[in-house]
């Protein structure tokens, strides 16, 4: 309860939450407001924004409604961002927890693998994965999740390393608890808050990665994605720059909202740091 109170005391955190809720509302209302396929031809191509009330944000090079694509794009960004984050944090927490708790050769092997993933530039790995498995919505989401897990793994491992020798864990051990009881019941609840906060960073990163992939036309071409639209707008950048500009702002606002919420959570969950 204190945490919630602390969260709402920060204006930046409240702004972030409002923006995020707005993006979520866009994603939810897309089907109602724009029942037609957002990728279907809607009108004349390259209508400037604010000139035709039917297309408040104008149309793109092939005459598709930009506003509709922005609304549907919110779905894709949140979906990919959310699912990829869950994948990355789940893998990361699992590997980090085992490496940090057991140490020794388990840690050695798991950290070698983590290091390998971090040594390979994440976007290059993403390219490899897309080249191998193709670019459908599912593969792209899973690929982003696979690319993003090392950082949460390192964070979880660091938390476990510092917590596993704390006296309350030793106390649990002298009470006769099993390893799994110690990991799940004693250490994990204390290690989780920073990992949850870090999930916001992973989510921001996932959204940015997907949009970059879509911009390069390596993401799923059959869904309305903000990155796709920016890539499309590149062909008419010289004059109709708005085709690229509008979806970019949508990405910026979404990522900003996620970051602000993450920062607010951080300050609310770790009040000690706030006073500094």
């Amino acid at each position: 309860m204190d945490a919630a109170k602390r969260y709402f005391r920060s204006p930046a955190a409240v702004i972030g939450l409002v923006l995020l809720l707005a993006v979520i509302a866009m994603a939810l209302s897309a089907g109602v407001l724009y029942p037609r396929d957002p990728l279907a031809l809607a009108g004349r191509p390259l209508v400037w924004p604010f000139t035709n009330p039917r297309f408040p944000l104008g149309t793109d090079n092939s005459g598709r409604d930009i506003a509709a694509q922005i609304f549907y794009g919110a779905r894709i960004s949140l979906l990919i961002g959310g699912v990829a984050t869950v994948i990355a944090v789940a893998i990361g927490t699992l590997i980090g927890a085992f490496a940090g708790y057991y140490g020794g050769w388990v840690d050695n092997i798991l950290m070698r693998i983590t290091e390998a993933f971090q040594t390979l530039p994440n976007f290059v790995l993403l390219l490899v994965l897309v080249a191998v498995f193709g670019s459908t919505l599912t593969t792209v989401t899973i690929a982003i999740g696979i690319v993003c897990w090392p950082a949460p793994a390192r964070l979880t491992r660091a938390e476990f390393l510092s917590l596993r020798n704390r006296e309350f864990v030793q106390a649990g051990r002298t009470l006769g608890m099993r390893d799994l009881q110690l990991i799940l019941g004693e250490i994990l609840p204390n290690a989780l808050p920073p990992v949850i906060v870090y999930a916001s960073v992973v989510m921001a990163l996932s959204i940015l990665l997907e949009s970059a992939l879509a911009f390069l036309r390596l993401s799923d071409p059959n869904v309305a994605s903000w990155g796709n639209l920016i890539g499309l707008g590149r062909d008419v950048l010289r004059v109709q720059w708005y085709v690229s500009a509008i979806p970019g702002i949508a990405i910026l606002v979404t990522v900003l909202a996620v970051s602000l919420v993450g920062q607010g959570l951080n300050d609310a969950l770790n009040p000690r740091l706030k006073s500094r």
Partner: protein
Amino acid sequence: MRIIGLAGRRLAASIPTLFLILIGVFLLLQLAPGDTVDALMAQMGGGDAATARELRKFYGLDLSIPAQLANYLWHLVRLDLGFSSIYGKPVATVIMERLPPTILLMTASLSFAFFFGLVFGVIASRAVNKWPDTLISTLGLVFYATPSFWFGLMAIVVFSIYLQWLPAGGFEDIGEVRTGIFRVIDIARHLILPTLTLGLIFLAIYLRIMRASMLEVLNLDYVRTARAKGLDETRVVMGHVLRNALLPMVTLIGLQAGTMLGGSVVVESVFSLPGLGRLAYESVIQRDLNTLLGIVFVSALLVVVVNFVVDLLYARLDPRISAEG
């Protein structure tokens, strides 16, 4: 000497990591639909099954996967990354041609991000919760949330199309042949926008870390000692805070090296720079898997080298490190 030994040992420890990556990606690419021969045949406009068989034999693609892997590693030991059928040259040659723009771009972006991240981080921490801090922190958040390719496109619209101050893309003017200092200036002009574009997100990260790190160090006991000595704030910051606060920043360079190289894929595509990142993109599009594997190896190697340099730097900054060895 001791420092070099220490960093050298870490360098040696990364060799297994490199092989792990290479073997992993090699096996992964076996799952890819089509191989080099398919790509080649498609480029030649098709051919019969017999030719394909001949070519597969020529490239050693008819062997079992472990044999192919062994073959590849054996060639790699002799610095032979194989042959790119798309470019008609050895992969190593193709990569070497594309390496300089990427290295230049990365160095420039890193310097830009590090320097301004440092300066803004220090300014923000000295005015914590006052307006300069709020402004810098807000800008940092916005920069962090800006997709780099979009920022690049918008920069092109403003600076190349409307203001016509800077070129919209390319590594240098191919219309005229320039030499010496004029060529350097020309390349520098071409690299300004890409550098800003790639460096922006890292600037945001560095300034946030620097600010947090400064605030943390300012609270440490030895800073209180320094104040109790009668040092003024400037001397406290210069003599007892700055260098100590820099340590996490330096660590971050090593951790972010891979991300930065990944970012250059996108930036080089936006600005049509003939670099390693663009090559990676092209080889995915053209299904030139041999080249892609070569790029994976070289970029991992690049990250390892950056980390080696960072280790040396860190050990110079922090006497505690060399003592541990």
